[in-house]
């Protein structure tokens, strides 16, 4: 048992009408575990489904709608707090898709607010956010220094009265990653929004999402990330995308993402061995919502750290974390 039924339902929602009761239980549990229940509800639309399922899908759409509204409000508060700086502030990921009402946003779970700012604006941005009521999620000096030196973002901040988290990025991948995407070019080509914020250009949105999935992360929530990419690729200009990907050193990753999206959500693609391993990791979810293929998942977890930093520093980092009793979340 893997997450394949979820992939099938997203690719071809008409097929869900053939599901029996245990099939529905499994589909709903894995969709919730992968945080794709809202997207699934949107894809199914008003096709006939059992009454018990209709109630669940309606709840999911209500949640997604509220989620989008709260995410846009959080962006509005960030725009308000950072307006005096009049430097570029670019929305990333879910909030960006919602702000530009892209297809990727429909029914999507959004969660934290991610923004991209020029690296030299970080101190002013940090100060402005503090003045407007944000504070560190956890004040741990080691994390703080580690983030500032090696990571592509500030430590996460949480707003005192709204309990919403903001991640401020100054580039796309950790500074130590093998690829070094051109953040300045992404900022320069950003598309302005009415509220003073901006979103990445269509090509850069894809490159950013691909970098997050294939060049950085341990693929937690990978099916959702790949669904974003599948939606963003729809109508993208392949030539410009290939040029942009090359500029960011992500050409290989973007081509792989195109194959994976076509294989899972599109009309199919010829897959390499590495593609199949990645797909096996993405589908590691069963009909009870449990993560499966634990060793494979753990291997990708180690890989994500390896990609972020050279071995010596990785050992030091893990040792310090272990000594401070940090359990991986």
């Amino acid at each position, binding site marked *: 048992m893997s997450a394949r039924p979820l992939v099938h339902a997203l690719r071809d929602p008409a097929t869900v009408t053939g599901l029996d*009761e245990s099939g529905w239980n499994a589909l*709903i549990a894995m969709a919730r575990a992968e945080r794709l229940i809202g997207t699934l509800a949107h894809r199914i639309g008003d096709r006939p489904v059992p009454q*018990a399922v209709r*109630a*669940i899908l309606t709840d999911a759409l*209500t949640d997604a709608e*509220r989620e989008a509204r709260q995410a846009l409000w959080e962006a509005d508060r960030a725009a308000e707090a950072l307006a005096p700086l009049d430097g570029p502030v670019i929305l990333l990921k879910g909030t960006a898709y919602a702000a530009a009402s892209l297809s990727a946003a429909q029914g999507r779970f959004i969660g934290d607010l991610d923004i991209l700012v020029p690296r030299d604006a970080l101190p002013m941005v940090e100060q402005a956010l503090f003045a407007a009521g944000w504070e560190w999620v956890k004040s741990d000096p080691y994390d703080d220094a580690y983030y500032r030196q090696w990571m592509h973002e500030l430590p996460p901040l949480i707003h005192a009265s709204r309990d919403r988290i903001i991640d401020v990025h100054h580039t796309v991948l950790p500074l130590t990653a093998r690829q070094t995407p051109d953040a300045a070019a992404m900022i320069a080509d950003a598309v302005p929004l009415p509220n003073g914020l901006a979103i990445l250009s269509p090509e850069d949105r894809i490159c950013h999402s691909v970098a997050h999935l294939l060049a950085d992360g341990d693929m937690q929530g990978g099916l959702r990330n790949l669904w974003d990419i599948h939606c963003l690729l729809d109508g993208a200009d392949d030539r410009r995308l290939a040029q942009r990907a090359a500029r960011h050193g992500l050409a290989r990753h973007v081509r792989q993402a195109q194959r994976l999206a076509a294989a899972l959500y599109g009309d199919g693609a010829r897959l390499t061995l590495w593609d199949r391993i990645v797909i096996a990791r993405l589908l590691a979810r069963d009909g*009870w*919502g449990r993560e499966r293929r634990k060793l494979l998942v753990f291997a990708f977890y180690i890989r994500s750290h390896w990609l972020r930093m050279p071995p010596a520093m990785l050992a030091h980092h893990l040792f310090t974390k272990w000594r401070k009793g940090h359990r991986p979340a």
Partner: protein
Amino acid sequence: MRHQLTLGIGPATFRIGSAWRQPLDQLARLYADYPQPSGTIADFTVRLQPAGFTRRWLRPSIFITGDHGLADAAPMSLAHGLLAAEMGMNLQMALGWRRHLLLHASSVERDGRALVMTGESGSGKSTLAAQLGERGWRLMGDEFALLDLDTGMIFPFPRLVSLKNRAIDVIAGEAPPERMGPLLAGTAKGDIRHLVPRADAIAAMGQGARPAMLIFPRFGPEAELRAVGQGEVFMRLTQASTNYVALGEPGFAALTRFVTSVPARAIDFPSGDAAIAMVEQLWDQLP
């Protein structure tokens, strides 16, 4: 998962998976009289899974999770499996239910009208509801009261009543042994036994009632009665609701309708009997 059970409580259907048979057997026995849910499509999945790789056999301990989970939920011993399953269902309702405003409150019904009682854990609301349930009131629920977003009616969630410590003997004296669950000794919250609601309360679990009074009960040194301002009632009910924020404007409309139409009292009581007397007296004074 190795073992599985589907339960219908009030309007919600739960699919509970477990690595062990014992908790599900206990549940099935205690929920035997409950109407079978119309189908097996579940609103929520609950999982009782081993807390660690070896914990399936070696000193088995349960990690409670499901559609919604708590990363740092404390593992529980298999001996407390019944309680773990109950908490697993509560967790899903608290985090996932959207079809009513969920109030962390107990409720009972008499002649078509509902009495709602809310207060922190240990305020005696479950025990009081159970006692009223044995004295001519219909028990609607001891943990969650479901406020209908359109009509303002209260709907039941008649799960097994969880009795803690002293309350066990109080209720054991009033309810027949076959409606009492096993004694779960030494849980994180002391000794616990479950009480199966009366058959008529279970049969009527689909019937709502118009809320007529809200009470904030509290176990206290001496009997005391205090009116509670609407501002304070509203504030405390937003704390006692786990889905108020998630419901958005319909939640605001439902809660303001409740607060402006249902009179509220805070009662301190030194004993169960004193509490029952105060409740009956307040209820008789209702217009």
